[in-house]
């Protein structure tokens, strides 16, 4: 193995990229459907198809972009846009923090800068679900497929938001949730705490969606509050055993 270490790394990077493209496909499918409806919001804000494409390829954030388009439509100030973007996307800070613990300390810095561009809910989900240390090429592969779908979907939504049959949009819109389930459910086999965690999260999220006052918060803000509160509570009650540093090294 030692002789061909470089070749082995290269081929494992390329197979990781291919795995990423494979897993990025359903993400792209879901993105396309969601972006289509996002495009309608962008159109209301007065964006051209090119501007919609540009926004989506640069930002890759559903709720954050939606909030942004609303502000643009209202001719809001730049400061308002900064604050709302911070709030709507704050959960990515938590996701990136979690990701940072899966990166080998010796990974070149430029990978961190590239990965930072690609932390969406879905790509984060599948990246974190891969066992062992994070291989950035897997993430790049998924992003390479999914992001253009997102951007193209947005542009097409601006051009022809109402042309895709509602039945198809409805069916495609659960693709993202299916992916989330594929990420969170299988580990329950080996860790019952995660099963309880999921049930608590479902219940609390449901409660938050109808409780007075709280239900008026944006879904991004509710996600942050619930994530911090539930993760902290379970960490106190069932602290995870410390991960040994050599655990994932071959």
């Amino acid at each position: 193995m030692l002789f061909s270490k470089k070749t082995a790394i290269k081929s494992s990077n390329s197979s990781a990229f291919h795995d990423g493209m494979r897993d990025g496909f359903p993400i792209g499918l879901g993105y396309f459907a969601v972006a289509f409806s996002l495009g309608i919001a962008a159109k209301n804000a007065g964006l051209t198809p090119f501007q919609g494409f540009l926004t989506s390829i640069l930002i890759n954030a559903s709720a954050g972009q939606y909030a942004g388009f609303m502000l643009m439509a209202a001719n809001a100030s730049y400061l308002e846009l900064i604050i709302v973007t911070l709030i709507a996307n704050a959960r990515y800070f938590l996701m990136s923090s979690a990701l940072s613990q899966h990166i080998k300390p010796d990974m070149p810095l430029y990978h961190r800068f590239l990965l930072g561009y690609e932390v969406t809910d879905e790509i984060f989900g599948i990246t974190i679900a891969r066992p062992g240390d994070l291989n950035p090429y897997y993430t790049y592969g998924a992003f390479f497929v999914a992001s253009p779908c997102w951007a193209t979907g947005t542009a097409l939504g601006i051009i022809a938001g109402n042309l895709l049959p509602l039945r198809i949009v409805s069916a495609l819109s659960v693709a993202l949730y299916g992916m989330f389930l594929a990420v969170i459910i299988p580990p329950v086999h080996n860790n019952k705490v995660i099963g309880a965690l999921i049930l608590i999260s479902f219940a609390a999220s449901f409660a938050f969606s109808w409780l007075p006052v709280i239900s008026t918060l944006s879904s991004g803000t509710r996600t942050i509050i619930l994530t911090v509160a539930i993760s902290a509570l379970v960490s106190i009650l069932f602290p995870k055993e410390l991960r040994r540093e050599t655990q994932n090294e071959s």
Partner: protein
Amino acid sequence: MNHNTYIYIGIMAGVTYAIRVLPLVLFRRQIKNQFIQSFLYYVPYVTLAVMTFPAILQATQSPVSGALALITGVIAAWFGASLFKVSLSCCVIVFISELFLIS
């Protein structure tokens, strides 16, 4: 005052990128604290679970088809179907059930 669309887009892009990249660049080492380690370990599951439910019930034309998609997805994922298959089975169940639910 009228605002420039490209400045709007630039602000959104800059702020969003900063939020995502800062933890990756700042937290370069393994965090030793057990609480923070546990916390970051649980974060993905909670975030994804919270974003899935009850949103999945509102994503479709009928909450019933959304609920069916949730059940189908959980079962498929539990029995080890791939990401793509879980996702696809959710889409198919929504499409089929809405043929009956939505006339």
